């Protein structure tokens, strides 16, 4: 009577292996953390979390050997998802490395912190491989809720609680938009599976409801990547949250959401894509850069810069799939490593209670700690997009993809904005090297773990800046995963067809 297969294959489990690894490690931390005192909890759960993220990288590699659909069309492992899995796992590992020092300087208890980072990373990975919007939603919630809580981790700072509450309220609102969009999409196409939606939308007749659905989903996802006009929360939240958490939430969840956006816009062949993106990208770049010009707090400045970078990245989404997708993927990785490095310096330099965060405090850093200043300078140059750094090729690919798609207006706006952006990044560098220091209290020496984090992100930034070819080739190879997935799909079971 029952020809339907109930039990998943072993391959199904391999297709969620990194997520399994991360959640198991997260649960182990939850189990042992209540039994430890503060100091041991910091070191032991931190070590466990690091091991967990490294094992997740290995698991991703194992997973890449068996691509395909898993769990009845819920997830799909392809080179696209593998790319984002690697990216998110390495971001997690670097963030954990840079958190060691921060946690003990700020006297924060470690268990929950590392647990939430691991679970959050698990959600983000799931987002990048999910091909079913219901699963995307749940994974999005996992990643969002863990970042809401993480933003409030600075115990003594009221500003941190404010940041957490603001992020939570606006974020839940945005998630509501996304969910409503998914519901409307189900109404328009009768499915929540991305490639089934794509098949309906490619078939010629596009229901009006689908435009509405895409708009709603875009509002929800746009909020999560801090694209204008849904960016208002960003500076306040980034200012209040702990610096390593900002490093995490300005990179990993964004990468995951960009993965979802790529799937929704390209794989599902979303209608009205170009105009939607055009307006958002232009607004994000302009508002982000103009906002950054007047900032005096470095964390706020980097927050505005992250809005602007979301704008540059979105430019690639308006381009043709064969150039746009690899450009967007490359930009995500380049921005992630650069930004994480910049925040690692900010986090170390901030000291106890994150007191040194204004431009004034950075005066004379070039003399007081030449190595730290030089590192930060390199990251800032990469954010500007100077050749030899990752940022240069990222911008180059994005804008050349835009030119190939005849988006001249958008490209011009992008260039103008890059010029504006150079001003405020250079301002930090000038302050560090040219201005006399206000206080000459010694900068704390860089501990080993933080040094590792800095070295890794610096290496990645320079590697992508000098030898971008391999990464780009890999990214290009995953275009076919998104554009022509219909061939490899199993028969789709929509909700309406069940028994």
């Amino acid at each position: 009577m029952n020809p339907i297969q109930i039990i998943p294959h072993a391959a199904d489990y391999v297709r969620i292996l990194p997520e399994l690894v991360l959640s198991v490690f997260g649960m182990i931390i939850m189990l042992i953390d209540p039994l430890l005192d503060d100091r041991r909890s910091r070191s032991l759960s931190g070590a466990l979390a690091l091991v967990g993220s490294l094992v997740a990288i290995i698991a991703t590699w194992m997973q890449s050997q068996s691509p395909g659909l898993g769990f009845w069309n819920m997830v799909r492992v392809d080179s696209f998802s593998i790319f984002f899995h690697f990216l998110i796992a390495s971001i997690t590992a670097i963030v954990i490395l840079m958190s060691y020092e921060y946690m003990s300087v700020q006297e924060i208890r470690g268990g929950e912190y590392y647990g939430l980072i691991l679970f959050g990373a698990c959600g983000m990975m799931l987002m990048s491989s999910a091909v079913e919007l219901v699963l995307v939603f749940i994974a999005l919630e996992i990643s969002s809720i863990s970042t809401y809580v993480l933003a409030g981790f600075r115990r003594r700072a009221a500003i941190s609680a404010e940041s957490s509450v603001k992020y939570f309220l606006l974020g839940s609102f945005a998630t509501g938009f996304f969910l409503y969009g998914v519901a409307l999409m189900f109404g328009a196409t009768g499915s929540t599976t991305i490639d089934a939606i794509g098949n309906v939308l490619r078939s010629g007749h596009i229901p009006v409801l689908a435009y509405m659905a895409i708009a709603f989903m875009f509002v929800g996802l746009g909020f999560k990547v801090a694209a204008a006009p849904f960016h208002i929360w960003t500076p306040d939240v980034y200012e209040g949250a702990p610096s390593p958490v900002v490093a995490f939430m300005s990179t990993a969840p964004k990468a995951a959401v960009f993965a979802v956006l790529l799937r929704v816009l390209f794989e599902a062949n979303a209608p009205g894509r170009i105009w939607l993106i055009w307006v958002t990208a232009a607004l994000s770049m302009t508002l982000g850069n103009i906002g950054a010009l007047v900032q005096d707090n470095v964390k706020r400045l980097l927050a505005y810069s992250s809005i602007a970078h979301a704008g540059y990245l979105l430019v690639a989404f308006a381009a043709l799939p064969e150039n746009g997708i690899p450009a967007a993927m490359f930009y995500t990785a380049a921005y992630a490593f650069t930004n994480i490095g910049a925040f690692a310096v900010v986090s170390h330099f901030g000291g106890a209670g994150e007191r040194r965060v204004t431009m004034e405090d950075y005066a004379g850093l070039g003399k007081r700690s030449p190595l730290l200043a030089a590192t930060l300078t390199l990251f800032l140059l990469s954010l500007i997009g100077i050749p030899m750094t990752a940022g240069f090729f990222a911008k180059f690919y994005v804008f050349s993809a835009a030119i190939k798609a005849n988006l001249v207006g958008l490209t011009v706006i992008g260039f103008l904005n890059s010029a504006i952006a150079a001003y405020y990044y250079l301002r930090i560098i000038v302050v560090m090297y040219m201005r006399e220091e206000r206080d000459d209290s010694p900068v704390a020496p860089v501990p080993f773990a933080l040094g590792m984090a800095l070295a890794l992100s610096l290496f990645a930034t320079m590697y992508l800046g000098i030898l971008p070819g391999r990464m780009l080739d890999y990214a290009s190879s995953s275009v076919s995963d998104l554009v022509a997935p219909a061939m490899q799909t199993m028969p789709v079971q929509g909700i309406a067809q069940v028994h």
Partner: protein
Amino acid sequence: MCAQCLTLFALNSSLECFPNSVANYIDLAPMPDNYFVRYLPLLIHFLVAVGFASVVVTLSWLIGYRRPSRAKMSPYECGMTPIGDTQSRFSVKFYLVGMLFILFDVEAVFLYPWAVILRKLKMFGFWEMFVYIAIFLVGFFYIWKKGALDWAAPSAKRGEV
């Protein structure tokens, strides 16, 4: 009559996935095949409840006496006059327990659709729920050891954040 009708409906629906032999032993009332008719008793119940409540309130408003006096309007008709704010802020523990309750309540809700379909899922269904509840138990162990359920000792526990 209506209540009976509802109960029988509930029985009937949950018996659907039993083997026929079992269902045959139980004398089922013919179930209304119209979806609307199934829930008609619920509607009647709702209307009666709303009607009764509004009638009672209206009647007491219409025929009751209202003669307020100063003594009647005071918070207590005898004893000390209260000084200051009578309410104080409560401990955060109340919210914590409230939130945790909701989480476990949601878990319990999932058990129902699982239970009605367990036979179809065979042994694997058992393991599905086993894993789910095991993950919940990790959370339970965590809050227990954290002392979140510990009412008397405020925060003497180790491992308080």
